[in-house]
């Protein structure tokens, strides 16, 4: 029961993240939607897959290791992309860029 709820919630987060990446106006807002969809959606879907019935224990442990690695790696890559885009000259679509003021 709870694995079905986790799978459906992850599917909804995936759809919301895809719509956000398609419709948002800026690199950083798209990255915001993409990070939410990647981390939360993938973690809940993999936890729902790890709670399925009729599966050996070591496969569940491998899926939980995959959840841990996604929680570790995905925000790191998103942070690196945002930092690289800001230093590479992509301006955010705002009236005042506070990150540029703080990093002087």
């Amino acid at each position, binding site marked *: 029961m709870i694995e079905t709820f986790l*799978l459906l919630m992850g599917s909804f987060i995936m759809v919301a993240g895809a719509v956000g990446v398609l419709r948002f106006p800026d690199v950083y807002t798209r990255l915001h939607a993409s990070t939410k969809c*990647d981390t939360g959606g993938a973690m809940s879907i993999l936890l729902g897959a790890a709670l399925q019935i009729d599966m050996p224990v070591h496969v569940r442990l491998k899926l939980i290791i995959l959840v841990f690695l996604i929680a570790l790696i*995905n925000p790191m890559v998103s942070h690196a992309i945002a930092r690289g885009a800001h230093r590479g000259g992509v301006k955010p679509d705002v009236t005042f860029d506070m990150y540029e003021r703080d990093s002087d």
Partner: protein
Amino acid sequence: MVETDFLVSYLLRPLGLTIAVLAVTSLLLLYRVVRGPTLADRMVGLNTITTKMVVLIALLAVLSQQYFMVDVAVVFLMVNAVGGLILAKHYEKGDKT
């Protein structure tokens, strides 16, 4: 008709429905990879698509009961992390190609 009934019986289970949602959203995100205005947009789309593919490989391994494919998903996630970091560092140096 038999193949269609087989497909519908998989889509009505939550695992098959999640696999279908992952495939359709990856195809939607391909628009951002092709039509991104800058390279950073393409990197965002590619990072999202590769994470979705990791989850898809793990779900297909659970669904088809071939559990060695979970190891393939772990290795693919690590390769994705290294590739994303290298692309971001390359973009930080200022090469816009």
